[in-house]
Structures are given as structure tokens and as C-alpha cells.
């Protein structure tokens, strides 16, 4: 039998060992998977909450419009046609996502609808100017976009609610920061718990490891079953965690749905599912393998 066949044999053996160990240490394996799951669900919930808050703020941001007024000449009022012709120039400005033209007559009609006909008595439509309602993205670019609009020939005053924008940006930054800090702490805590759980699981096996060392096993040979074990438990924890997170999210969505569906629209789980699954599996595997290798490190120093 050739060298490669031998290696294959051994690899197969070590992988089988990993699975055997999961079975023989059933309770510990169960505890490990549960802990990975719990950590991932807590982390996932924080992340999803942050995603939804950001999404909600984004929605609100979109409603924050810049109003750019078309300047009238000294004595003549600009015709609607001429005012409309400014639109391509506005659209060409970076960060502008949507442009809506409102003529002076439409503007007056809107005001009359809002304030009542009596109040508008004797007011001519020439009081109003043609205007563009402009949406931008990202909102951080508000100041520069406003400046670019003001520099556009034919545009006079530009009104933008910088305060609102700043508030939105601040809230979004705080939410992201809090989420990142919380997740960092959670990752650290999970690693710690994991490492200790696996340490407990391997404590009973230190004799076995010592025997392996005594008959001339290399560290790699001893480690591989633990890596396989960590990998499998990590994937299991990640996968089950994903399913649980999904269920939880649907539950929240349904209970919110009836009460607040008009105000709060949650980001659909399915649009995020592949990302969440990948992250859960990734973190699960890292925690599992790291925990497994870290836990037996001390026993290998003989």
C-alpha cells in the first residue's frame, strides 16, 4: 500500500475519531452546541435590531427633502418650460437620487389645500416660485449637495434641513457603535464559555492524550480529532442557531405586524438569510475549532 493510501487511511481514521468522540461525549457535545447557539442568537438579535433601526432611519432620511427654488429674473417670471429644463443639470449632481418638479401654480394649490382658501385670498401665484424637491443618498453628503445646487445657474435659494440630517446621522452612528461594542463583548464571552466547556470535555481525556504522546503521536495527530469535533459542533451550533433566529424573527415580525405595520416595517428575513447563515456558520466554526484547539493546548506540552 502506497504512502498516499496510508495517509488517506489515517485521515479517515482521525475524522472517524472526531465523530466517535462527539458521540461518546454526548452531554458535553450537546452543551457545546447549545452554548454556541445561545451566543449566536443573542449576537444575531442585537445585529438584527441594529439593522432594523438603521433601515428605519434610512427610510426617514429618504423623506428628508432638499427644496431648490428656481430664481426669477428681476422683472420677468420664468416660464414653467424654462424652469423644467434645469432638471437634467440637477440630476447630474452627485448623490442626487430623485428629483421632483413642482410649478408655482401647483405649489400655490398645495398651500391652498393645506391652509384653506380664505387665508390665500388675494394672493397671486407669482408669490410662489418654481421648485425642485430633491432626495439624496447618503445623507452625509447633504452640505456638499446643497452647495452644488446653489452653484447651479438658474437656482436661487436652497433649503435643506441640516439639523434633521445631523440628528439622523448621529442616531445611526450611536446605534451602530452600541451594536458593535455589544457584539464584540458577546464574541469574547462566547469564546470564553466555549473554551471552558471544551476544556471540561477534554479534562477527562487528558489521560488519553498523555498515552498518545507516550506512544509517539505527533501534536497534529492528537489535535485533528479535536479540530474535527470543534468543526462539526460549530457547524451544528451555527446551523441550529440560524434556524432558531429565523423562527424568533418571524415571531417578532408577526406580533409587531398586526399592531404597528403602518409605522414599522421590518426588513424581511429572507433578504438577509444568506448573509446571516454565512456569518453564523463562520462564527460557529471559529468558536468551535478555536475552543477545541485551545482547550487541549496545555495537555500537548508533555
Amino acid at each position, binding site marked *: *500500500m502506497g504512502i498516499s*493510501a*496510508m*495517509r488517506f*487511511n*489515517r485521515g479517515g*481514521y482521525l475524522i472517524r475519531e472526531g465523530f466517535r468522540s462527539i458521540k*461518546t461525549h454526548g452531554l458535553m457535545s450537546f452543551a457545546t452546541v447549545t452554548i454556541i447557539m445561545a451566543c449566536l442568537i443573542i449576537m444575531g438579535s442585537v445585529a438584527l435590531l441594529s439593522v432594523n433601526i438603521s433601515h428605519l432611519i434610512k427610510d426617514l432620511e429618504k423623506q428628508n427633502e432638499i427644496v431648490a427654488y428656481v430664481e426669477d429674473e428681476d422683472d420677468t417670471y420664468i416660464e414653467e418650460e424654462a424652469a423644467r429644463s434645469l432638471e437634467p443639470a440637477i440630476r447630474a449632481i452627485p448623490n442626487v437620487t430623485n428629483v421632483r418638479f413642482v410649478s408655482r401654480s401647483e405649489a400655490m394649490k398645495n398651500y391652498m389645500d393645506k391652509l384653506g382658501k380664505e387665508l390665500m385670498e388675494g394672493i397671486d401665484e407669482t408669490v410662489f416660485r418654481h421648485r425642485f424637491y430633491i432626495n439624496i443618498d447618503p445623507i452625509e453628503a447633504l452640505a456638499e449637495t446643497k452647495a452644488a445646487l446653489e452653484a447651479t445657474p438658474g437656482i436661487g435659494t436652497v433649503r435643506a434641513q441640516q439639523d434633521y440630517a445631523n440628528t439622523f446621522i448621529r442616531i445611526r452612528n450611536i446605534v451602530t457603535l452600541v451594536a458593535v461594542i455589544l457584539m464584540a463583548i458577546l464574541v469574547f464571552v462566547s469564546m470564553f464559555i466555549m473554551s471552558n466547556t471544551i476544556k471540561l470535555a477534554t479534562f477527562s481525556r487528558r*489521560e*488519553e492524550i*498523555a*498515552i*498518545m*504522546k*507516550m*506512544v*509517539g*503521536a*505527533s501534536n497534529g*495527530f492528537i489535535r485533528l480529532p479535536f479540530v474535527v469535533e470543534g468543526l462539526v459542533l460549530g457547524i451544528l451550533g451555527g446551523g441550529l442557531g440560524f434556524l432558531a433566529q429565523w423562527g424568533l424573527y418571524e415571531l417578532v415580525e408577526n406580533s409587531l405586524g398586526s399592531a404597528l405595520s403602518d409605522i414599522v416595517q421590518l426588513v424581511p428575513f429572507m433578504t438577509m438569510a444568506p448573509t446571516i447563515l454565512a456569518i453564523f456558520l463562520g462564527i460557529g466554526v471559529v468558536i468551535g475549532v478555536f475552543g477545541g484547539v485551545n482547550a487541549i493546548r496545555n495537555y500537548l506540552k*508533555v
Partner: protein
Amino acid sequence: MVRFDKVKLTYDNSGTLALDGVDLKVDEGEFVFLVGPSGSGKTSLMKLITGEVRADSGRVIVNDFDMMRIRRRKLPKMRRTLGVVFQDYRLIENMNVYDNVAFAMRVVGASSREIRRRVPYVLELVGLEGTEKRLPTELSGGEQQRVAIARALVNNPRMIVADEPTGNLDPVRSLELMLLFEKINEMGTTVLVVTHEKELVNAFAKRVITINDGHVISDGMDGYFSYEIQ
């Protein structure tokens, strides 16, 4: 083959001098008893041979490996030239007899075919044929120690080192085990047995190295009594 030249060893945590300038040489194919009272340095000497500890000064050669300079990575390779037997057997409890022995072969990357051929042969050699499927806990102490010996032998080591192998056995089983070591030695393997059982040592006309207080105080064929004369 084992060779010690002026070997000194202190224990880090207590600063106790465990071995103080030990010289000894065990040649290929020899059968040697290493005797001495507890705390004399026997176990330290064993640990130097298996590479569990490193000497402070002097020279330690085991099966052509320079134990003072050996890299950690090379230790597994060195250990494969040794078969180690302990007083407490050190078997893996949830593996049956066959797997306990086969596992030592898997560690060194033997093929399944080699394992299937070699393990039954070694089990027969130590007189354990028919116990393959049993767990260590279902066997007597003497039988468990035979499994440990089979495991030590299975990779065809150049030397067997046994640390108080009969410590947990009654006199009859102890004698049987020594006869097994003698048989193994006659087949060409060097055997080094650490013990403090006088009767057992005296029953065999073998070379006896006596160690006390970290020194070799006698070395010869005159048996265990030399250490009591001191």
C-alpha cells in the same frame, strides 16, 4: 541503547537535586533492572529517557537521539523507538483490548492491513489471545498490564522501559510478567525495568543498577543486595 554522562537534574519548582552526576550505559539487547528506594531518582531517570524532562547538564543519548538537543517536534519520532509500560497500565478505558493495541499503530501511520496482521500476533505473544473484544475494566490487573506490554511492543521498539510494572500485582503475576519481559528480551529487544521488589530482582540473574540520592551506587550482576550494604 541508553547512555548518561554526568547527568544533573534539579526540579524547577523545589530546587531539589534529583540526579547528581549520573553515568550509565545500557547496550543494545541487554536486560537491566534499575533499583533504589523511593525518592532515589529512578522516576527522574525514566523521565529523562522518555523525554518528559530535560537534564540541566551532562549528556543523555537514547536510541541514537541526543536528548539534550532534541527538538520538541522530533520527540514523537524518538518515542516510537521506545515501548513504555507504567505501573498503572494507562489503558484507554472505552476502547477494547484490540483497539488499545491497534491505536499505537495508527499513531505511527500503519496501514489497516499491517494492523490486522500485527495486533493478533502481539496479543498472542503476551498470552491474551481471545480477549480482543473485552474492555480493560473486564480484565485482571495482570491481564491489563499485558495489554499495556502488547501496546508497547506492537511497533517493534528497540527498547522497552517499564516503570514499576509489577507494582499493582501479586507475586505470582509479577513473576509471570517478568518471564514475559525476559522472553521479549530474548527476541532481541532491550529491556529496562525499574522496580523496588527485591525478591523479584533476585529471582533473575540480571544486571542491576542501584541508584540512591541521585547517584549510581552500584552496577553489576551481584543483585539487589548491593544497595542494602551501603
